[in-house]
């Protein structure tokens, strides 16, 4: 008896032409000066300073526990919600310190959207998921307006074609990759200037990952995107700038091409080549 088995190579689409254009350097959107973060007595971040360009993708890489997610959460002040967490230093966005007393974190978070590691749609309908942000911020003045925003956001997130006929179904009924794009649509709906992504693809399969990476590549035309990732390949594929963290310190930052091909720091070299991590 002959066992016949045909193995098809898996079709994996990767983000369209991985062209990180270092040619047109973008003006700085967020400038971070001397940030220290403490959880109680423990110092999680040690004197971080970096410039993050607008309308480009900046990737934060580094081993687990190096503080890259903590740093990401400083940018929309999500660390405020953690008991015992203290942030010192300056994060200046468009010429204003976001840690200033006059800044309302609620307004800041509308300007700086966030996408989390695990897709976390609200247990409400797809429409409600996207409409929630515009509604609480009073962005839409009437129902048609709101429907327009929801449609536009879902289109930008590349999800409209898949869900346009079932907007009333629960967002949690979508697949993992669709959920993550729904969450991105939800972030886009409030007209943010910056989108923070905390390992957005770590819970997704390769195909869904490719879709999200494609999406990130499209979105950088309009938004300043900061992405935390564990995947070196992903950082190389989607980002134009890369920042390497290690043990709470910023080791090196520069254009993605430079970091991956010609790192200045030996620790960066070791991490990228897999010797530490």
């Amino acid at each position: 008896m002959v066992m016949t088995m045909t193995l098809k190579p898996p079709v994996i689409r990767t983000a369209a032409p991985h062209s990180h254009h270092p040619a047109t350097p973008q003006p700085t959107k967020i400038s971070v000066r001397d940030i220290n973060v403490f959880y109680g007595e423990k110092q999680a971040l040690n004197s971080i300073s970096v410039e993050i360009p607008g309308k480009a993708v900046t990737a934060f890489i580094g081993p687990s526990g190096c503080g890259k997610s903590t740093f990401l959460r400083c940018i929309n002040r999500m660390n405020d919600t953690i008991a015992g967490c203290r942030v010192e230093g300056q994060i200046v966005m468009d010429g204003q310190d976001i840690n200033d007393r006059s800044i309302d974190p609620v307004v800041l978070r509308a300007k700086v959207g966030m996408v989390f590691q695990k897709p976390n749609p609200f247990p409400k309908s797809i429409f409600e998921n996207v409409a929630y942000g515009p509604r609480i911020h009073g962005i839409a003045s009437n129902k048609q307006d709101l429907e327009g925003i929801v449609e536009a956001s879902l289109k930008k997130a590349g999800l409209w074609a898949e869900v346009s006929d079932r907007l009333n179904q629960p967002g949690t009924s979508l697949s993992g990759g669709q959920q993550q794009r729904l969450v991105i649509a939800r972030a886009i709906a409030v007209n943010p200037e910056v989108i923070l992504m905390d390992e957005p693809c770590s819970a997704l399969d390769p195909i869904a990952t490719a879709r999200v990476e494609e999406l990130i590549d499209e979105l950088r035309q309009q938004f300043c995107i900061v992405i935390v990732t564990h995947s070196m390949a992903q950082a190389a594929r989607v980002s134009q700038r890369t920042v390497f963290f290690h043990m709470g310190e910023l080791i090196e930052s520069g254009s993605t091409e430079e970091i991956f091909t010609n790192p200045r720091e030996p620790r960066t070299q070791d991490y990228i080549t897999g010797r530490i991590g």
Partner: protein
Amino acid sequence: MTDIAAARLKKRHAAETRFRVYGRTAIIIALSFLALLMGRIGMQGYSTFTTNTVSLSVYLDPARIDAGDLEGSNFDYVVALALLKKMGETDDDYGTNASEAMDLVSRDLGFQILNRLKAEPGLLGKTITVTGPMKANADLYYKGQLKRETAQADRRLNNHQLDWLDRLKADGDVKSGFNVAFFTHADSTEPEQAGILGAVMGSAMMLLVTALIAVPMGVLAAVWLEEFAPKNRWTDIIEVNINNLAAVPSIVYGLLGLAVFINWLGAPRGAPLTGGMVLALMALPTIIIATRSALKAVPPSIREAALGVGASRTQTVFHHVLPQAMPGVMTGTILSLAHALGETAPLLMIGMIAFNPGIPEGFTSSASVLPVQVFIWENASERAFHERTAAAIIVLLVFMIAMNAAAVILRRRFERRW
């Protein structure tokens, strides 16, 4: 496989089988106790739901009824004479026969005649037919709970009275039917006239007060403690004390209610308002604990999602976290309210033990509640009250089952809401 491994595997299977047997035994024992309890209550109480009524032709003798003073006339005696006449007997000089007849027929018939005469004075001198309940002992005889075989000295009715009852039954003047009075009357000193409606209304009103006070307060307290309160020594102390309060014996809440609500604040004694306030205090810790654990069970990713799109903390809690926690909150709340419904001890402390022959008029008037009604009837000397005790327990259980069913339905509805 080695021998040792095989032996160990066999041991593991044996342990698993043993554990399964223990579990099943425990469930069977628990269920049989429940069946025993329910069976006993059912057996004792079901007879309450039927009752025997008698129809009598009564001659409204102008010589015995004073048209100018209807309220002062002895209608019970008129009814007794009608019964004697039917039996072909007359009253003797000492009135023994008439009082024996009065022991068989409820005073309700006398009241019916009074009311009809008040409405229509022209009936005086005529013969009318009235239908009403038998006295409780006669009712028990028909139901077979008072037996002729018992020695005459040991039962409440003598042979002569039993002969009359047999004849009434044989002549078709007594009919058995559904005991409507039990569901439409409040408490009474006469068992055949005593009903549960007053206590049901009292319980419902009291529970309404409890729910209106305890649910909003408990849920808001839990939301603040869980979502907003800083974690420091003060909130730790509050948390420990709430957990302790849940374990305080209920009678202590009764004493508190007596001291604070009645003696200090001047709340009415034995009223649904006061009872509801005391039970609200008692239900509060349970509701807070249940709500907090329901809130804790909501995944933090939902909070992050809401905060991430720029919702304030209050919006996050009230738009996302609390709705998600709602099924748990509802379950905890309804269970604690059901617990409050069955609570007796604290209500005795605040004077809810009074005899209440009417349906409560308002939240501040004296009222009976179901568990206390059970307590009062159980202590009554008349035998007929004992079957009513069991019937009242059945009503209480039905009330609770209805509440729990409502909880399940509400849960379903909230869980389905997207």
